[in-house]
């Protein structure tokens, strides 16, 4: 980061690192910020896990740090538990994984991979980040407000969300975050459409670029409905309208003061109109990362590049047509439920196609087992579990039993944590040499990898068991219901695994910062990869390429017969 001065015009510290318009600096800003938010969201969860495993006992070490109304005598109160749950979901999805997958990796890697000097709108790119950070800070600050943070789950279903305190800041913050994401999506689309280097036709783009492109389309079309829905909910809270408040609502024995006549189901429709495509926003970029890592470390072309791209586009289209499978038992029309059942079954086909292509890419390869590749390999079966456990939830009959149980939580955490986050961590090891010109330590990486995957499975597998036994999610005290007692032991296993997961992040954090300064120095292309980001210096200077690169071939020309080296770079003229 210190070598990018080429002397045209000396940038001040502020211009260079804080209000930078360089996509690489913004990408790293996103990287650091979203990792911090992931840690915060994880911290909230660790508090909740204590309550779930040992309900009614004081939280060790931290219990007495909280004000008495949140945690009397160090024991978590129900309101505090609800706030932690809502904020955990919101922070992890909107402030953690999406900014990491899109803001950090997309911002840094996409322009490099298509041979662009920067994003299409550098200043707008800066604005995206500087909306994201205050939006996130606002979200966190809601803990300090009287009444506490939002307590209605990350889904914020009315009427509860309109009655509960803390929701107003949540909504304001969401509007800001959505605006930031929309600006980012526009930027990604224009960059991919217009800023590709000569010769970089669409079918020569790496899978990661395609994933980012489809993701940007999803963000662009899916986020505005939630923005509108949030504005309506904000009106309900601030101006006492009744968009989501039904007629004759009675709250704690008192009639609701508003005019009534609204539709609570409308919010669910609009929320999931965003939130289901959002699931694919969480999953597509990690799939792209895994594809890059696998192609690079199997030293052979990806199996079915075009199949994967078409599958991603198909997922993008279909993801707009499946949302109401979250609402099967909400009171929605059962006939429409059948429609969503069918679309849900259809969307599993392209997802399986991508996974199958990735697995077939391994066939007959002499695999290089480095740390990023281990993460990519772990992604395949674990994401597979996440996907397969989703099928019973997409079928109306089985969903009636499984809805709102721990099974649902287990399912989507397998998708997002052992799928997306595993892949994103692998991406850090993969691109770290490009970002900083140094390599992360392998031994610490191995400890991080084995510890994290094992403890992640230890957290989420018990949830599937508990859910199948009928344990409901979002319960403050799981031992209060008799039917939960036989599976309470799994809650303890899950909690201990969560703390182990925290422990195994320490080598990663140490490794990251230590390697920044003391890591082994690496050449421009340490992994002997073919794509364009490895054809410029590490770290790339301002403007990325000394002269605009020219692209001659597809992205995965590994082990081409008759060539001296086993990789043929896209920029290599012969």
């Amino acid at each position, binding site marked *: 980061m210190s070598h990018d001065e080429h002397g*045209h015009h000396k940038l001040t510290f502020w211009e260079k690192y804080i209000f930078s318009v360089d996509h690489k600096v913004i990408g790293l800003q996103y990287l650091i910020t979203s990792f911090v938010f992931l840690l915060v969201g994880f911290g909230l969860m660790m508090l909740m896990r204590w309550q779930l495993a040992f309900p009614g006992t004081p939280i060790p070490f931290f219990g007495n740090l909280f004000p008495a109304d949140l945690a009397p005598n160090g024991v978590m109160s129900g309101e505090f538990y609800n706030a932690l749950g809502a904020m955990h979901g919101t922070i992890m999805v909107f402030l953690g994984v999406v900014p990491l997958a899109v803001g950090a990796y997309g911002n840094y890697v996409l322009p490099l991979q298509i041979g*662009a*000097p*920067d994003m*299409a*709108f*550098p200043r*707008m790119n800066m604005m995206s980040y500087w909306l994201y950070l205050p939006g996130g800070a606002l979200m966190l600050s809601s803990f300090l407000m009287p009444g506490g943070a939002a307590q209605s789950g990350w889904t914020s279903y009315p009427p509860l969300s309109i009655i509960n305190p803390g929701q107003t800041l949540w909504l304001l913050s969401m509007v800001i975050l959505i605006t930031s994401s*929309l600006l980012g*999506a*526009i*930027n990604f*689309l*224009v960059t991919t*459409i*217009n*800023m*590709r*280097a*000569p*010769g*970089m*036709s669409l079918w020569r783009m790496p899978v990661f670029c395609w994933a980012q492109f489809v993701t940007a389309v999803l963000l*662009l*079309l*899916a*986020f*505005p*409905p939630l*923005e*509108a*829905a949030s*504005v*309506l909910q904000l*009106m309900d809270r601030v*101006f*006492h*309208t*009744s*968009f989501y408040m039904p007629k004759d609502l009675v709250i704690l024995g008192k009639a609701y003061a*508003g*005019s009534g*006549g*609204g*539709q609570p189901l*409308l919010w669910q429709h*609009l929320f999931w*109109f965003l939130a289901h495509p959002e699931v694919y926003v969480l999953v597509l970029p990690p799939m792209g990362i895994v594809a890059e890592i696998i192609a690079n470390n199997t030293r052979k072309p990806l199996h079915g590049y075009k199949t994967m791209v078409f599958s991603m586009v198909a997922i993008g289209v279909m993801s707009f047509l499946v949302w109401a499978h979250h609402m099967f038992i909400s009171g929605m029309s059962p006939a429409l439920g059948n429609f969503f059942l069918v679309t849900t079954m259809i969307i599993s086909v392209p997802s399986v196609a991508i996974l199958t292509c990735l697995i077939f890419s391994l066939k007959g390869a002499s695999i290089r087992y480095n740390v990023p590749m281990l993460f990519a390999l772990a992604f395949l079966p674990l994401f597979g579990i996440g996907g397969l456990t989703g099928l019973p939830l997409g079928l109306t009959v089985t969903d009636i039993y499984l809805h709102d149980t721990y099974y649902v939580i287990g399912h989507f955490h397998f998708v997002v944590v052992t799928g997306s986050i595993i892949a994103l961590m692998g991406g850090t090891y993969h691109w770290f040499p490009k970002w900083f010109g140094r390599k992360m330590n392998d031994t610490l990486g191995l400890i991080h990898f084995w510890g994290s995957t094992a403890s992640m499975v230890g957290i989420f597998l018990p949830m599937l068991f508990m859910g199948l036994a009928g344990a409901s999610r979002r319960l403050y005290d799981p031992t209060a219901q008799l039917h939960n007692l036989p599976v309470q032991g799994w809650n303890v296993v899950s909690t201990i695994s969560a703390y182990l997961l925290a422990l195994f992040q320490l080598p990663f954090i140490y490794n990251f910062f230590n390697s920044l300064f003391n890591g082994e120095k690496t050449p421009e292309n340490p992994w002997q990869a073919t794509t364009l980001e490895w054809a410029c210096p590490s770290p790339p200077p*301002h*403007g990325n390429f000394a002269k*605009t690169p020219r692209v001659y071939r597809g992205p995965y020309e590994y082990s081409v017969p008759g060539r001296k080296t086993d990789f043929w770079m896209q920029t290599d003229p012969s």
Partner: protein
Amino acid sequence: MSQTLNPAAFMNNPDTHSGVTNAKLGVWLFLASEIMLFATLFTSYIVLRMGATSWPWGWDVLNVPLATLNTVILISSSVTIVMAYAKAYDKNKSGFQGWMAATLALSFGFLVVKAFEYGAEFKLGIGPHTSVFYAIYFTMTGLHGIHILGGIAVNGGLLYMSSVKEHWENPLFLGRVEGAGLYWHFVDIVWIFLFPALYLL
């Protein structure tokens, strides 16, 4: 900023460039998200209206003459901004500034009329909380008003930029005027649907 960052430099790759400038493509994509935003609001409007036991006629409860006046104002401003674009195309600076100033005046006029309309309703004690109809009315016209304010900021900025030689002679200036125009026409189209939906049907 170095020359490589000039997006126009990339227009020389006909095989990898769409032929639409970054700015115009960006504006259209922004409008795409705006279309989704207002489509959602109209959907909510229809859902709430279908679920309601009764729904008033707009002309019974709202001020149609004022709204008609506003429609005329907004359509006129759409014409003035497209005229400003024509003048910018011909490199006629004073012509551009005249039409742009007219656009701004009309937009302020729209807001003033709107303020009278709101004021009269507030005086009667009517607000967004009164009924679902008024909730929709205030929310949609309010959001539309915020979009007008945004347009005023952009158009005012362009008017100021035209007085600075460096900006006026920038080859990208015409594209900026066109982008602002696209946005303004979009705001006009939203009103074209809002007016009958709230006041007449």
